[in-house]
């Protein structure tokens, strides 16, 4: 008997691109057996703007604001990665004062990014309250950015060779006040979620990705640390003076969604620890290194990777000695982490799929570029 549509047990569903819990414009084609996911396929590219191609038509300095628009939640980290890559190519180093300020701003950015992740992830699971609280605390970070460089989200805070803006008068007090306010707030989120039975039941044992799987897929950031691998580029290959600061790399063993949540919460606390050490000890001196007015890096190539909030963010830049980059290639953490979606989602339920997409912490601006 020929199978009719009604006979078939398999169902193919489209999730997204206009779905609130796909965090932007991700389209997931889901193959279902009843409520069980038997396969997924991601369709990306709805937010493609050709950032890497734009780079070839701009000067080295002019391209810097565009990198903020890839991972717009962690714009400062993106800026740092690009600036470090071009500095390596040009063979200059940012002065010590600039490096410390860069560390403070990127760690604040890590907090902001994790806060946005926590709020939206909790919203996907069904807990609305944390979103309001995380947005409130994120405002503190954004206010510091606004006072420092004049923009809140796509900051363009760093320039190649150092910083453009000198610190404003109350910078240290603002940052310290934020740190003091923020730590009890993290405890508050944990009080809301960590022991809550619905939260634990929805997350524990969902979307398990073992350490071997992580290495196979090239997954980095909190996802690999939740699987028990102590891998953090801030420790493994320190940049911008991270070797001076004393902090720990939080890890967990199981590699499920709950562990990734715990790892990110711990990371926010560690970020506060780094910021406190850095803000106490800002050296005086110039903020801009010896960079020529017309930047023409020598012929060559450079790769610099940094630990962005979502994982390893790499910039591969090639110069042919002209005013414009010959090629800029970005290794975005979201794009590579997203590959593991299928491995995690197989065998889980549709409701868990929402939790799994949330836990990868993707920003579609970075996936599509």
């Amino acid at each position: 008997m020929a199978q009719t549509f009604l006979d078939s047990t398999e169902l193919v569903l489209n999730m997204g691109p206009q779905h609130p819990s796909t965090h932007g414009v991700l389209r997931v084609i889901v193959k279902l057996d009843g409520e069980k996911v038997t396969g997924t396929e991601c369709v990306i590219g709805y937010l493609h703007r050709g950032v890497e191609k734009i780079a070839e038509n701009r000067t080295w300095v002019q391209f810097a604001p565009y990198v903020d628009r890839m991972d717009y939640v962690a714009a400062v980290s993106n800026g740092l990665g690009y600036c470090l890559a071009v500095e390596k190519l040009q063979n200059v180093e940012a002065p010590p004062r600039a490096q410390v300020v860069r560390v403070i701003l990127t760690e604040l950015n890590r907090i902001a990014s994790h806060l946005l992740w926590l709020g939206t992830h909790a919203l996907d699971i069904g807990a609305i309250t944390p979103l309001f609280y995380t947005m409130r605390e994120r405002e503190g970070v954004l206010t510091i950015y606004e006072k420092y460089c004049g923009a809140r989200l796509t900051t363009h805070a760093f320039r190649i060779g150092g910083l453009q803006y000198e610190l404003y008068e109350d910078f240290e007090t603002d940052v310290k006040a934020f740190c003091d306010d923020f730590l009890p707030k993290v405890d508050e989120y944990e009080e809301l979620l960590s022991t809550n039975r619905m939260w634990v039941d929805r997350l524990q044992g969902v979307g398990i990705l073992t350490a071997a799987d992580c290495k196979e897929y090239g997954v980095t950031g909190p996802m690999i640390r939740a699987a028990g691998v102590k891998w953090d580029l801030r420790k493994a290959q320190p940049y911008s003076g991270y070797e001076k600061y004393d902090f720990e790399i939080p890890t967990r063993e199981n590699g499920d969604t709950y562990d990734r949540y715990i790892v990110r919460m711990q990371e926010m606390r560690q970020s506060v620890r780094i910021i406190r050490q850095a803000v106490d000890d800002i050296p005086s001196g110039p903020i801009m290194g010896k960079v020529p007015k017309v930047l023409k890096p020598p012929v060559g190539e450079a790769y610099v990777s940094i630990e962005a909030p979502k994982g390893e963010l790499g910039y591969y830049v090639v110069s042919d000695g002209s005013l414009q980059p010959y090629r800029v290639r970005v290794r975005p953490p979201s794009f590579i982490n997203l590959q593991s979606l299928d491995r995690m989602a197989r065998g889980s339920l549709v409701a868990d799929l929402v939790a799994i997409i949330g836990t990868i912490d993707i920003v579609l601006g970075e996936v599509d570029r």
Partner: protein
Amino acid sequence: MLQLFKTIFLVDLFQGLWVTLRNQHPKHIVTEQYPAQRPKVAERYRGAPRLNINPENNETLCIGCNLCALACPENLIVVGTARDKQTNKKVLTTFTYDTSRCMFCGLCEDACPVDALELTQDFEIASYTREGAIWDRQLLEEGPKPTQYQF
């Protein structure tokens, strides 16, 4: 035993509810009542562009050097200059700035040698038409005039 007690009496849920209740106090209200209350943006805020004029003689500060147009990644600034026949100096004639393509990166104000072009604290720059987003010299010198609502 303790775990059973905690499970039956929903201790974990009440713990979370207590956090929510604690945050109900009016001192925790953070919402801004825009547009009744307009936010005070930071001094360095990069908002609407402005072409500064000298307040003493109402002449423009711009020297027409075209550096901002060269610095702009989106090539949205067009500077028009003419040579003054009598003094043989370069004088600014037109200045257009397309705010619809601007990403407020601040590279133009960094490039300006005389601090004539500035990104100001005005942030209400929406317009009903696409043409309205292209600012000419007059608008850049006077600044935007956002609607003031009566409450």
